[in-house]
C-alpha cells in the first residue's frame, strides 16, 4: 500500500507474544534523548495556529525508539494538538516532523503507519470485536487465515478471547479500551500514540490498565507517546515526561528529574505537592538568603542565575518538612508555625500549618503506630534541611 507501512509479518511468526524478527529491531534498549539516528519521532520548531492563536508554538522534541514518553500538562496546553500533528490529523502552521528518520510533515495520515488509542476507544459499533481488530489487517490486504491467527493471538495476549464475537457496546469500558489497544498492536506499528486513553475509566481500573500498557510496552518494544493530564499516571508510566504549558514545553526529563529538579514554579506546582515561598534574594554572611513573608531563609547552593536582589521562589516538598525539630538542628531551616489540621491517609500523615505571617505550609510524614499526637492549634517549630530546598526563578507575570 505504501512504503511507510511495515510489510506483513510471515504467518508463522505473527504472534505479538513472540519476539519475532519484525519486532526485534524495536526491542533494543534506547536511551532517553536519543541521537537523531535512533529517534522514532523528531519534531522541529513545530507550531499550530488556530485563527491566529497558537495552540502549539515552536516545539522541538525527540522521542527515541522504544521509549515511553508522556506529554503531561493541564487541559488546553497543546498535548492533543501535538499528537494530532504527529498522526497527521492536523497540518502544522510551521515546523517539521520526522517519523522513523523520514520527513512526514506532509505525508497523508494513512501512510504514516502509526497506531493510535483514543479516550473514547473509537471502536466501530457495527463490527464485532473480531472484525474491529481485523480491520487494520484487512486494510493491509493480509490473507484471511493469517488475519484470523493474528487477531486471536492479540486477543489471547489481552485475555479477551471469549469476547471475539461480541459488539463493542456489550463490553465494559476497560474491556473496550483493551480491545482498542489490541486493534493497535495487531499490525505492529512502530509508534503508538495515546490520547488520555484511561481518562474515561475509574481509578481502580485505570491503575490496572497502566500496568497492562507498561507490560505491552516492555514486551513489544514499541515506541509510545502518551498524553495525560494526570501527574500520577505520568510518573508511574513514563521513561520521560514532557511537561507542556500554553503550547510550549515547560520542562522535560525523567520522572525523578521532574520531581526532584523542577526548573520552574509551574513544574514544581504541577508535579507533586509543594510548599512555595516567594521572596527576594539578598547577600548575608557570605551566602544567599531569601527574604519572604515568613522570614529570612537559608537557601541551598544555587547556580549563577540567582543573584542578590533578584526575585526567587524557594520550593520545599512536604515530605522534607518535619513538624518536630530533631536534636541535631545543624543545616536545617526552622520556622514557627501553628497546626491547623492533620489528615491521616492510611500510611501517610499530612499536616496543614500556618506561619505567623499567614503562609500555608504542608508537611508530610509516614504514619507510625505510636506517633505522638499533635493537637489542632498547637504551636510548633517546623524545619527542613536547607539542602532539601530548591531555588526557582520567580514566575514571569
Amino acid at each position, binding site marked *: *500500500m505504501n512504503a511507510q*507501512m511495515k510489510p506483513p509479518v510471515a504467518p508463522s511468526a505473527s504472534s505479538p507474544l513472540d519476539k519475532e524478527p519484525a519486532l526485534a529491531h524495536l526491542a533494543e534498549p534506547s536511551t532517553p534523548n536519543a541521537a537523531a539516528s535512533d529517534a522514532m519521532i523528531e519534531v522541529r520548531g513545530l507550531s499550530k495556529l488556530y485563527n491566529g492563536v497558537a495552540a502549539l508554538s515552536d516545539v522541538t522534541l525527540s522521542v527515541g525508539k522504544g521509549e515511553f514518553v508522556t506529554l503531561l500538562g493541564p487541559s488546553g496546553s497543546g498535548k492533543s494538538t501535538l499528537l494530532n500533528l504527529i*498522526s*497527521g*490529523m492536523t497540518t502544522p502552521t510551521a515546523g517539521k516532523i520526522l517519523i522513523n528518520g523520514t520527513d512526514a510533515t506532509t505525508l497523508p*495520515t*494513512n*501512510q*504514516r*503507519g*502509526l*497506531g*493510535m488509542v*483514543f479516550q*473514547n476507544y*473509537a471502536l*466501530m*459499533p*457495527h463490527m464485532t470485536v473480531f472484525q474491529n481488530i481485523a*480491520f*487494520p489487517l484487512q*486494510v*493491509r490486504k493480509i490473507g484471511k487465515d493469517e488475519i484470523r491467527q493474528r487477531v486471536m493471538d492479540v486477543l489471547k495476549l489481552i485475555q479477551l478471547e471469549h469476547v471475539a464475537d461480541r459488539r463493542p457496546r456489550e463490553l465494559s469500558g476497560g474491556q473496550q479500551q483493551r480491545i482498542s489497544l489490541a*486493534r493497535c498492536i495487531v*499490525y505492529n506499528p512502530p509508534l503508538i500514540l495515546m490520547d488520555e486513553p484511561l481518562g474515561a475509566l475509574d481509578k481502580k481500573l485505570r491503575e490496572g490498565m497502566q500496568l497492562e500498557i507498561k507490560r505491552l510496552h516492555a514486551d513489544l518494544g514499541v515506541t509510545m507517546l502518551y498524553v495525560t493530564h494526570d501527574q500520577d499516571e505520568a510518573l508511574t508510566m513514563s521513561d520521560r515526561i514532557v511537561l507542556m504549558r500554553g503550547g510550549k514545553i515547560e520542562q522535560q526529563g525523567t520522572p525523578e528529574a521532574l520531581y526532584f529538579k523542577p526548573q520552574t514554579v509551574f513544574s514544581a506546582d504541577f508535579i507533586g505537592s509543594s510548599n512555595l515561598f516567594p521572596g527576594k534574594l539578598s547577600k548575608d554572611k557570605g551566602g544567599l538568603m531569601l527574604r519572604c513573608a515568613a522570614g529570612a531563609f537559608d537557601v541551598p547552593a544555587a547556580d549563577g542565575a540567582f543573584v542578590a536582589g533578584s526575585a526567587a521562589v524557594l520550593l520545599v516538598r512536604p515530605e522534607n518538612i518535619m513538624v518536630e525539630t530533631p536534636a541535631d538542628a545543624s543545616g536545617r531551616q526552622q520556622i514557627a508555625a501553628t497546626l491547623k489540621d492533620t489528615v491521616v491517609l492510611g500510611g501517610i500523615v499530612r499536616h496543614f500549618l500556618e506561619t505567623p505571617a499567614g503562609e500555608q505550609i504542608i508537611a508530610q510524614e509516614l504514619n507510625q503506630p505510636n506517633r505522638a499526637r499533635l493537637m489542632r492549634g498547637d504551636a510548633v517549630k517546623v524545619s527542613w534541611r536547607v539542602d532539601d530546598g530548591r531555588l526557582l526563578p520567580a514566575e514571569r507575570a
Partner: protein
Amino acid sequence: MTRPLRTAAVFFVPVVAWACYLFLLLPSVIVFPISFGTGGEFEFPPRAFSLELYRQFFTDAAWWGAMTQSLMIALMTALATTVLGLPAAYALQRASLPGAGLINGFIMGPLLVPVIVLGLGLYLQFAPWNLLNRDVSLFLSHTMLAVPFMMISVGASLRHLDPTLENAALIMGASKPAIFFKVVLPQLKAGIAAGALFAFLISFDEVIVAYFVTGPETQTLPVKMYSAMRWELSPVIAAASTLVTVFSILLAIGIMMLQRKEKQQ
C-alpha cells in the same frame, strides 16, 4: 391559573385537539368505506360491500398505467436521491468546503420555494427543450424536490456519527473510499433507508409539479386522480385514494421504524 380554570383546561385541551384531528382526518377516512361501494357512483355509506371499484382500478389501463408510472418514477427518484444526496451530505458535513453554506442553501432551496412556482418554472424550462410529457423531466423534477429530504435524513445520522471513528480508520491506514464504504456507510444505513423512503413517498404523492410537466402518456397516479375528479368524477377515485393512503401510511411506518432503530444504536 386558578384551580377550576386548570381543570377546565385539562378537560378541554384534549377535546379540542381531538376535534382538530378528526376534522383533518375525516375527509381521508371517509373514502375508505366509499371505496368498497358497489360502483357506478359515490355512495356513503355504501349499500353493500364490494370490490368492484378495485376491479375497475386494476383493469382500466388508464388507472393501472398511472399507478405503475408513479411507482417507477418514485423508485427512480429514490435511487437518484440516494446517489446524489448521500455523498453531498457527507461532503458538506465532513470536508470543510469553501462556501459549504451556500451549496447547502442551494440544495435545500426547493424546500423554500412554493411548489406551484417550482412547477411553473420547470414547465417553462422544459418546454423549449421539448422535454414535457417525458419521464425524464418528471424524474428530474422529483429528484430535485426529494434530495433535500435525503440530505436532512442522512445529515441527522451523520451528526450522530463520531468523527473519531473515521480518524481512527485513517490512522490505521485505510483509504478514503474504504473509510466511506466500511466505516461510514454501514452506520448510515437506517438514515439512508429512511431518506430513500421519504424520497419515494414525496415523488409518489406529488401532484403539482407532475401536473405541469407530465402529459397524457406520462401521467402519474395523483395527476390521474386530479383529472378524474375534474372531468369524470368516477368513484374509482375512492379506490385509488385508499390504495395511495394505505401505501403512504405503510411507508411512513417504515420510516418511523428505521428512525427508531437508529436512535437505539
